[in-house]
């Protein structure tokens, strides 16, 4: 397994004239990926321990969601390369993810899920 960094041509390697983003994409090494993987497993362990802990109610939900958001960002940023890729891909995905979150948060608010 190669643990060296790979610098490859970006997906904008041969863009049409006038294209603005021509950065070189950075790909983390295998060792970095393993570190992120271990972090994800550790966060999952923390989540499971939290669910068995004496924490309850809002505190538990906030703690669990904090872990979930960190895991989400790690996978999207490192494994899906959004941290290193062209910013436009991040914006496209954010449009869907944040749009969906906003839409369904409004739906849940309308049905007063949190007040029940």
């Amino acid at each position, binding site marked *: 397994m190669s643990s060296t960094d790979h610098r490859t041509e970006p997906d904008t390697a041969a*863009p049409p004239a006038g294209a603005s983003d021509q950065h070189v994409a950075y790909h983390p090494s295998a060792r970095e990926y393993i570190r992120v993987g271990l972090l994800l497993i550790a966060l*999952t362990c923390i989540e*499971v321990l939290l669910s068995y802990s004496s924490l309850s109610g809002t505190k538990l939900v906030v703690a669990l969601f904090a872990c*979930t958001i960190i895991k989400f960002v790690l996978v999207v940023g490192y494994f899906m390369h959004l941290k290193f890729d062209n910013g436009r891909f991040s914006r496209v995905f954010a449009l*869907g993810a944040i*749009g969906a979150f906003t839409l*369904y948060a409004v739906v849940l608010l309308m049905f007063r*899920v949190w007040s029940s």
Partner: protein
Amino acid sequence: MADAHADLVHTEYTSTGLRSTKLAMWLFLASECLLFGGLITAYVLYRGQSTTGPYPQDVFDIGYTSVSSFVLLASSLTMVLSHNAALARDYARMRLWLLATAMLGLCFVGGQVFEFTSFFREGLTLHTNLFGSTFFVLTGFHGVHVTVGILMLLILVAFSFRGSLSDDPAFPVEMVGLYWHFVDIVWIVIFTVVYLIPAPPPHGAV
């Protein structure tokens, strides 16, 4: 002629300079956020609204589902290692990691089938109550996505052995990887919302 075709395939860029296949994949994943967002919202809306059992606390086994989650997280790691190997043009290792990812995915789906079967034995079906309907639809849709991902991985391995992957095998591996990691992040959310956050007491319970 073949080279011209290959050039055409590999240099399809949008007017923004982004590779169109990759942009399409990200647009697809963005739309999938809406699909799974809707299913998760339906589950949350009907939490604690079931009037008959079995209820979540009667059937869930957090320890068992945690192991499934670890398996899926490990599969994301093997997937990204396969992409790394493809970038390094180490195709034997790429195939090995792809197969490992597919095997871990199969373990996850097998675990889900076992879980569904045990729930069924305890009397929980799609029609039993609101919990059963929303739970099976949400996790079932996710399971179907994992299964599709496994098929894509196996097709990738088969194409790789046949030598019919493009000149740049790292690209299709990256595309399948994006889909696979997305399935993983959906599970990260499902695991917390469905399994870890305690369900409210059954409807009408004091």
